[in-house]
């Protein structure tokens, strides 16, 4: 169980960070979502892994209720933040005509690169060089 959860968090974080480092808004947003899933899981198990135990003190075993409250807050906040980021990224794409996340100087080139890549998310490293 420990290995399963630990490797799940590790995988999510790795994928999230890899996607965060992309130069376009959509992968960055996906990466942030994966990172927030990872941190939510991490927060959830910070009260230790306990199976089949209620989060109240009664008779017998109980699980720590506080991480559950914390993770609920974190989920709500990250959901709201992702929604804001999606809307802002959409606004940036619609006003600028391309969806590069860096403050790209050559606008025409960015739009062209964006049009070429649209449809298949292949590696655009060659076009990243201005």
């Amino acid at each position, binding site marked *: 169980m420990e290995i399963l959860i630990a490797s799940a968090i590790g995988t999510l974080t790795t994928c999230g960070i890899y996607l965060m480092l992309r130069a376009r808004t959509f992968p960055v947003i996906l990466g*942030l979502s994966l990172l927030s899933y990872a941190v939510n899981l991490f927060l959830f198990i910070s009260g230790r892994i306990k199976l089949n135990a209620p989060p109240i003190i009664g008779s017998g075993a109980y699980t720590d209720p506080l991480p559950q409250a914390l993770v609920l807050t974190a989920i709500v906040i990250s959901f709201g933040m992702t929604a*804001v980021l999606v809307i802002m990224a959409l606004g940036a794409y619609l006003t*600028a005509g391309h969806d590069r996340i860096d403050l790209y100087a050559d606008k025409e080139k960015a739009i062209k690169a964006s049009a070429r890549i649209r449809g298949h998310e292949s590696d655009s490293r060659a076009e990243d060089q201005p």
Partner: protein
Amino acid sequence: MSPLLILPIILPAVLAGGIILFASNALNLQRAISVLGTLALLGLAISLSQAPTQAYFLGNWPAPFGIALVLDGLSALMLLLTASLALIILIHTIRTGWDACGRHFHALYLFQLMGLNGAFLTGDAFNLFVFFEVLLIASYGLMVHGSGEARIRAGVQYVAFNLLGSTLFLFALAVIYSTTGTLNMADLAQKLPQIAANDTGLIRVAAVLLMLVFAVKAALVPLQFWLPGTYANAPGPVAALFAVMTKVGAYALIRFGTLVFPTDLPATTTLLAGLLYPAALATIAIGALGTLATRTLPRQIAFAAIGSMGTLLLTVSAFTPQATAAALYYTVHSTFAAAALFLIADVCRTRRDGLTAALYMAAAIAMAGMPPLSGFVGKLLVLDALRDDAIAWTAILLASLLTMIGFARQGSDLFWKSPSAEAPAQSKAAILLCLTALAALTIAAGPITDQLTLTAEALHQPAAYIAANHLGGPK
């Protein structure tokens, strides 16, 4: 337990909600509510700054189980700084008509103040995260106020950077909770010295993660990349308000560095100070070089703001009462100086006349740390606190020189060489108020530093802060 403590958070929240519900189409009503609300916040901040260290427990749940708000000298100082700066910027916004460029400026502004006040008052690390998010989400809205391509694209970058910071914050909090079982800051201060020896590694990781988060907020090199683009593209008054946002990072670093991870804690000892010191030196260098290298005024001010954060955090990294007092004075000074410069940059967009040039010179002198304004007093206090540190002296003095050259060149380009469009003159009342605040800081430097020394000593002896939480049980 005074209920006054919760008002700086509740009042702007209720007013902002009221504006959205009942006044979303009446700009004058919004302005009236916003100004009255900010005036009330200023009054509250003044009355709270007289109050002794105390705590407020929401729903009367005792700490560490419930949510505690704790007021001490540092919180009161930051509340007062925020409220007075907010009022000045609000005057500028209304006089220049920035708030009419888009909807909901005043609601977002009040939510921003709620987040700032909450971050300064909370005594609980998780609620610090929550209030960080409140102030960030309001700042996202303010940042793209008035729209425009460059602004929205810079905004996306700003949001992405800060979301990553929030994720790191949660990782740090989870590690702290799993090792200590508490997130109340006073409780942490009591429990961390007694943690098991094999948990110290985890605590060190959490301390560094937390420092990274606060460094993102404080724009410490190498995490400063979001700041120039954001500040240069934000609307003028919003950039001026953001001058206090970097100070939230500095506040959190001072709070955690003195209360939760003090230098005599066996698990971390001088870990934070050791990391802060070189980063702050690099920040000073990048800030000064950026001030010299940039061509547009808003970007230049953004780099000067980065440089001032470097000086501030270099002072903080000493973690002695004298240095902390100097850092607090420099915090207040650099906030008003950066805000004044951003407001001047806003006025300069349309018209550059003689009075603006004079105000620019005064603000630039303050920012660079030349006499007679408070920048000089601030740098003097900083240098006095770091008396034995030759590297810090060299860095701060060289940076002052470079900043001064950068501002002088920018000023001559801006006011002498480029033609000024004959736009109608804009109100400069808010800039004058900022400079008045700087002058008052200079004239009253004696009593203010006495007060700040008391505050700093209390920060380094946090017994009163911890006692205010009544951790043994309700009183």
